[in-house]
């Protein structure tokens, strides 16, 4: 059971996810790239209710860790600290933002599979990458609301089920796409990426259901 969510990265994505998690009733531990004191004022004012820590402390204390660092910096996170943890990869490889990163351009797989190789002993789930950080906070809706949007997720089924409940509490309908390789279907360039879809529409885009 997830009660404490850890967030690595206190930028725009990390802050928006942190506020969403707090609103959903989770305890939130968050880190920037350095000591907790560096982000204390930011957390106090922009993410009130969250606890500022170092990345290692966040990883050790959270039931589930959300990676929200810039893609070109993911190797600054010590993979040993995430061993055995459920980890959500929110990152995208965006050439216009990240520049050309050879490990992604020369590897045909989805970015999360490359990231998963690095965090080999973590249980990685790809999600929260195809919604804008503004939209995460404005589009959350209670379960059953006809305007509720879906969020796709990919990873091993057992771990994904845990993450699905978190997404549900965040205010979105989780749509399980399959193992991590299936996450390619909601990366940049896909019809899902950056769009707004209900769970039914997402299922059709992912080829899990037939259009009516």
């Amino acid at each position, binding site marked *: 059971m997830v009660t404490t969510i850890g967030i690595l990265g206190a930028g725009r994505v990390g802050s928006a996810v942190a506020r969403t998690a707090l609103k959903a009733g989770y305890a939130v531990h968050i880190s920037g790239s350095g000591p907790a004191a560096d982000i204390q004022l930011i957390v106090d004012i922009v993410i009130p209710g969250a606890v500022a820590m170092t990345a290692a402390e966040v990883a050790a204390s959270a039931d589930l860790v959300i990676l929200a660092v810039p893609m*070109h910096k993911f190797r600054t996170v010590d993979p040993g600290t995430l061993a055995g943890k459920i980890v959500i990869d929110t990152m995208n490889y965006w050439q216009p933002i990240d520049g050309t990163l050879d490990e992604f351009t020369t590897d045909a797989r989805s970015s999360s599979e490359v990231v998963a190789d690095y965090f080999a002993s973590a249980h990685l789930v790809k999600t929260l990458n195809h919604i804008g950080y503004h939209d995460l906070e404005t589009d959350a809706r209670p379960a059953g609301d006809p305007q509720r949007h879906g969020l796709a997720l990919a990873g091993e089924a057992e771990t994904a089920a845990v993450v699905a409940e978190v997404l549900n509490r965040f205010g979105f309908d989780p749509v399980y796409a399959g193992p991590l390789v299936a996450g390619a279907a909601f990366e940049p360039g896909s019809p899902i990426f950056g769009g*707004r879809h209900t769970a039914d529409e997402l299922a059709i885009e992912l080829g899990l259901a037939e259009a009516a």
Partner: protein
Amino acid sequence: MEIGAYSFGDTPLDPDGSPRSTAEGIRNLFDAIVAADKVGLDYFGIGEHHTVSMPASSPGAMIAAAAAATDRIILGSAASIISTDDPVRVFQQLATADAISGGGRVEITAGRGSSVETFPLFGYDLADYDRLYAEKLDLLMTINDSPTESISWSGTVRPALTDLAVVPRPVRGRLPIWLATGGNAASSARAGKLGLPVSYGIIGGEPHRFAPLAELYRRSATQAGHTGEDIKVSVATFGLVAPTKNEALERFYPGWHNLNVEMGRLRGWGAPDRRQFDTQAAAPGAYYVGDPDDVAERIAHLHGYLGHMRHFFQADFGGLPQEHLLESISLLATEVKPRVARLLAAK
């Protein structure tokens, strides 16, 4: 409240949608600045941009030309991508424009750039993104704050300066230097810590959600001992004003659509969605597209959250017809500005 406009340049389109020349985009921008001065707009910002559709690559040159052709309007870069430029040259170009303007009308806004085309264009490595920005901002501030022409500075991103003259000096001693940010909390804290005015570029979501960032900025400034008139907030958003809300929406939408098709191709977004546009163009969305009453009320509403002293708008992208830009600028100066003043005075 100062009301202004900003532009990255907008290469005009032929009726069949094919682009006309980038030079025409530059000429239109110059004409718009001159027109804005005549109708009494407070501010015009030129944002460094390096694409065929948005060709305002050289804010310093544009501002120098505009300084000579205008009388009252404040001119600024919005922003200068200082990470990939030489702060010595940025300062010299804008200080030159300041001298031409008579003094006190030229500002610099220092940005990092939200897209990365300046890195290959000027031969920089994106891996140095943070260090380039931090050091070059420090150099720019060192030059600006210097009591004399003689500058000494050392860092890792360019050769050191040892008692070298950087000329001309601004007419009033210093140029206002703003720090531009799109909403990263650390950037707000940095602006406060440095004692620089902050300029928020809000291109989506709900602008009033920036309130905690503005508070973070002001608290960071106070903690660092910075008070006084440099601690202030400006806001840049999309916006177009027309006689009626419906005209404004129909004038703005085609360019927005074109922009999003182009950005979507670059960044992997899906097709632009009219529903999303309509949501953003209505309160409390981020597109200030409407008639003068609508736009004025939304500026005043946002002021309750951010306490900003300047709000400036980008209307011209994706081939906005020039006459629509000019009418929007005129309405901003003559209709929106007095309404905002009345609304704020009544609070």
